[in-house]
């Protein structure tokens, strides 16, 4: 699994999507695959299988889960920016988690074959602290750092007050106005809340890295398929590469057909009755 990368990628995506997607929707979408499942993963007899496989809650790391969640939100709220944010956020989470040995089932239920590039070992079987220590002893920690550097180099403007005022608020005026009314937070407070996810990502990255080095004292092994001090790979499939490619391709084709059908039957109708934030609200001043 990826850790802080899931926080940083939100700002990167937001920079490219601009006012088309809600940042709050995006953040919930990114969190959604682990939101209700993560705490149960560590208590499971087979954490990797439970987390990413089938049977298990691995469907939360599939593209169809994002589609269902986004359609549900579009139906309930009519907000296009929220539904698009949730879809893109959840899909980003799925693609990011391809990197560990357990992988994800992107085209579930059409293919239950895990797709992975095995950059680092899924280590939930080590318990929450062991998992953190293993992740920040492997290329996983480097993966987080890569996303932080990318955020700083490419998308640092998304953290400015000006960007918050001109893009984040106009993309989702109703939700931010609701937060403003309910919490009585002014622009500074809401900006701090917006930046909070990046702060959390950077903070937990540094804290767990320090814990791995000075608390757990695990060896730092940022090599492919590391860390090698773990005895288990937690690879969920024993299929060969060709078999994985074949099953995944077939699953992908079936998923694409399903997506087209869902769009024709439900999606297009919901999208048409959905609304973008009205311009009058976009230009409204909350504070």
């Amino acid at each position: 699994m990826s850790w802080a990368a899931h926080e940083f990628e939100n700002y990167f995506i937001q920079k490219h999507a601009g006012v088309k997607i809600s940042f709050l929707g995006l953040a919930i979408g990114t969190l959604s695959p682990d939101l209700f499942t993560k705490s149960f993963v560590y208590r499971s007899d087979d954490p990797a299988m439970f987390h990413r496989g089938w049977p298990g809650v691995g469907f939360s790391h599939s593209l169809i889960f994002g589609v269902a969640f986004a359609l549900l939100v579009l139906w309930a709220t009519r907000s296009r920016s929220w539904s698009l944010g949730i879809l893109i956020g959840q899909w980003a989470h799925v693609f990011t988690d391809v990197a560990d040995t357990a992988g994800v089932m992107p085209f579930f239920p059409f293919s239950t074959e895990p797709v992975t590039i095995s950059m680092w070992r899924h280590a939930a079987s080590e318990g929450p602290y062991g998992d953190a220590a293993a992740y920040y002893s492997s290329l996983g920690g480097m993966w987080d750092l890569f996303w932080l550097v990318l955020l700083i180099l490419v998308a640092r403007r998304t953290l400015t007050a000006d960007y918050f005022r001109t893009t984040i608020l106009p993309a989702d005026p109703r939700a931010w106005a609701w937060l403003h009314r309910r919490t009585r937070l002014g622009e500074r407070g809401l900006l701090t809340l917006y930046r909070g996810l990046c702060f959390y990502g950077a903070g937990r990255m540094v804290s767990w890295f320090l814990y791995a080095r000075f608390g757990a004292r695990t060896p730092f092994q940022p090599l492919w398929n590391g860390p090698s001090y773990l005895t288990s790979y937690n690879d969920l499939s024993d299929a060969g590469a060709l078999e994985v490619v074949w099953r995944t391709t077939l699953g992908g084709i079936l998923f694409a057909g399903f997506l087209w059908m869902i769009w024709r039957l439900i999606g297009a109708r919901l999208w048409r009755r959905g609304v973008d934030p009205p311009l009058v609200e976009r230009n409204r001043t909350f504070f």
Partner: protein
Amino acid sequence: MPDSPSREALAWAAAFVAYVALGYWTKGLVLNWIIGPLFPLFVLILIPQALGGRNSR
């Protein structure tokens, strides 16, 4: 939160150091997706305000 950009950056840096130290010490207690994103809001806005600091809302 302070007005000048340099003081604001300093406040964020101090909050970050405090969060990392707390995180190292308490681990999952603050290093979670509920406390983590809300930490700067509490430390930089709400607590100073509750302590009678400058009205930053």
